[in-house]
């Protein structure tokens, strides 16, 4: 089985704060990590390989420093890492990103493609399904369990608002995964050694045969017009006194507001 996992290097958004005076993001000391959902996709890829044999390749599109994320994936046990890097990719929205990744996947070849359900910086959840569309293969989003991987087919559980669906698909297929799917493994010592030595394969726009007008800013139908800080409201009542007095004051307010 040829398995490709698409990953993204992101700032750890749990650590990002807004400077209230300048309304700008404070990024100092914010670590870059593999998008957390993508680590579950890597784990899923490794588990499928353990069952069926084959090879797991991680792919990312990004600046040269995204290599760190790829080496981390190798330390978890993936066989091969590919970095798509080219100035022509700059300014890509989800459309152009998905197009570029799809061209690379075509170039490498895959039976199963795995992505995290979304990246924690953009939170769009669009790139996975868009890749599947460009490749003209089926996709299933929000996978919480893989029930079966057999010749030419897969059965998975898709998380929905009210429960889950059991869905069957032919191969090749693209899956986007949620955290409930698995617990990503830690890097082994052997993995860390391999990560240090591994050669990261670099591919440019020309290498993957991508059409220039579909790349980067030119290939992106959406544009960011501006960014701003979210509003926060300021009127509030903090109760004083003993625990019991505070609770009584709260109950009084709620009764006054006809909430009880």
């Amino acid at each position: 089985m040829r398995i490709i996992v698409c990953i993204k290097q992101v700032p750890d958004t749990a650590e990002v704060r807004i400077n209230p005076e300048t309304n700008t993001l404070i990024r100092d000391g914010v670590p870059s990590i593999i998008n957390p959902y993508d680590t579950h996709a890597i784990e899923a890829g490794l588990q499928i390989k353990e069952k069926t044999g084959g090879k797991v390749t991680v792919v990312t599109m990004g600046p040269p420093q995204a290599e760190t994320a790829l080496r981390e994936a190798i330390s978890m046990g993936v066989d091969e890492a590919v970095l798509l890097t080219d100035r022509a990719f700059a300014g890509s929205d989800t459309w152009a990103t998905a197009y570029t990744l799809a061209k690379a996947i075509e170039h490498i070849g895959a039976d199963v493609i795995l992505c995290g359900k979304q990246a924690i910086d953009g939170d769009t959840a669009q790139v996975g399904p868009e890749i599947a569309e460009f490749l003209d293969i089926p996709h299933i989003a929000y996978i919480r369990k893989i029930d079966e991987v057999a010749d030419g087919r897969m059965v998975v559980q898709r998380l929905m608002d009210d429960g889950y669906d059991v869905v069957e698909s032919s191969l090749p297929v693209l899956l986007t995964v949620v955290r409930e799917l698995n617990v990503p493994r830690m890097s082994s010592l052997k993995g860390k050694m391999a990560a240090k030595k591994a050669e990261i394969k670099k591919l440019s726009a020309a290498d993957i045969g991508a059409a220039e007008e579909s790349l980067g800013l030119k290939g992106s139908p959406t544009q960011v017009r501006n960014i701003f800080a979210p509003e926060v409201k300021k009127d509030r009542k903090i109760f004083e006194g003993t625990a019991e007095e505070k609770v009584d004051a709260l109950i009084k307010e709620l009764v006054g507001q006809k909430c009880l």
Partner: protein
Amino acid sequence: MLIKVNRDKCTGCESCIQSCPFDSIVMKDDKAEITETCQFCRACLSVCPEGAIYEIEEASDRKEKEEGTGVWVYAEQRDGVIAGVSFELLGAGRSLANKLGAEVSAVLFGASEADARELIRWGADRVYHCDDEVVRAFNDEPYADLLSGLIQKYRPEIVLAGATPIGRSFIPRVAARLKAGLTADCTALEIDEDSRNLLQVRPAFGGNIMATILCPHTRPQMATVRPRVMKRGAYDESRQGEIIPVKADNIKSRTKVLETIKEVSDISVNLQEANVIVSGGRGTGGEKGFKLLHELAGALGASLGASRAAVDEGWIPYRHQVGQTGKTVGPKIYIACGISGAVQHVVGMQSSDIIIAINKNPEAPIFDIATYGIVGDLFEIVPMLTKKIKEAKGL
């Protein structure tokens, strides 16, 4: 378009570096330089005290704008029941259409003709309805095929869908196929009246910033919209409209839904419909803390929510999660217990009418957005609150 730095004007003050949400500005020879990760958000333009940063438009940027007319709403159903977000989208779509002088059409796959009539009463002028077997259960390919085909035939200007598991899964396929701009999980929509462009506002970076997104050249402009943020329009029993039947001929699916499992919990997890939500975070310390919240929720007839921290710890299943990566809720009362109030959580609950915060740490940011705050140990406060609420209700 490109963002450039005038090296003669740049004094190397580094103000711009802090302003960049994408970490795309570096110092080179004591001057600012924009790197290739630039997303062209223009945040740095207004920050530079010297006016040294500017934008230039490339000749190839000036494309002909594509045409289209009308606002479309994809009305989602599951098991023949229309999702609440569909009515909210009709409300939002109606007000956009009024500004554009356009009509509102709904697209409904599955469900009945009676449901299509309901969409008209909620504000649609027209409903494209397909009730063929192949679209009754949700599969991405037939949904994407059918919707893409309709869009190509009728050429709407705007297409809205719910940012639900269904909308966020198949709408991207439609956008990819049509080469249309698609903005995910919008929380506000406006029309720029000069250009007729749709201004799409959405949170990013875990809700730490808001971004306004445009699709200046392509049509339709597509957006998924977060449930529970748009207001429903007026319901008019006598409203008339047209229902156009659509056939799903030659539409195939390489995926098949074998089974649909509804998960029931002893306490309602239908957070988006709840009037009262009791929610727990890291401060609950685990199952013991959640048991107390469970009792409080029981006394109030409330649903149980949780922060990402509590879900990540495995104390409570993901479907209870409120926040940027969970559900967005807007109950009458939201009680946050042991939740610090990270922006990622706050964006999912800040539209609640009354927010009650219970937290040990008086500096916790949750108090900044709270209507009422109690600084204290939830293991002491919550049981007392449960007892007194029961008394107040005469239970």
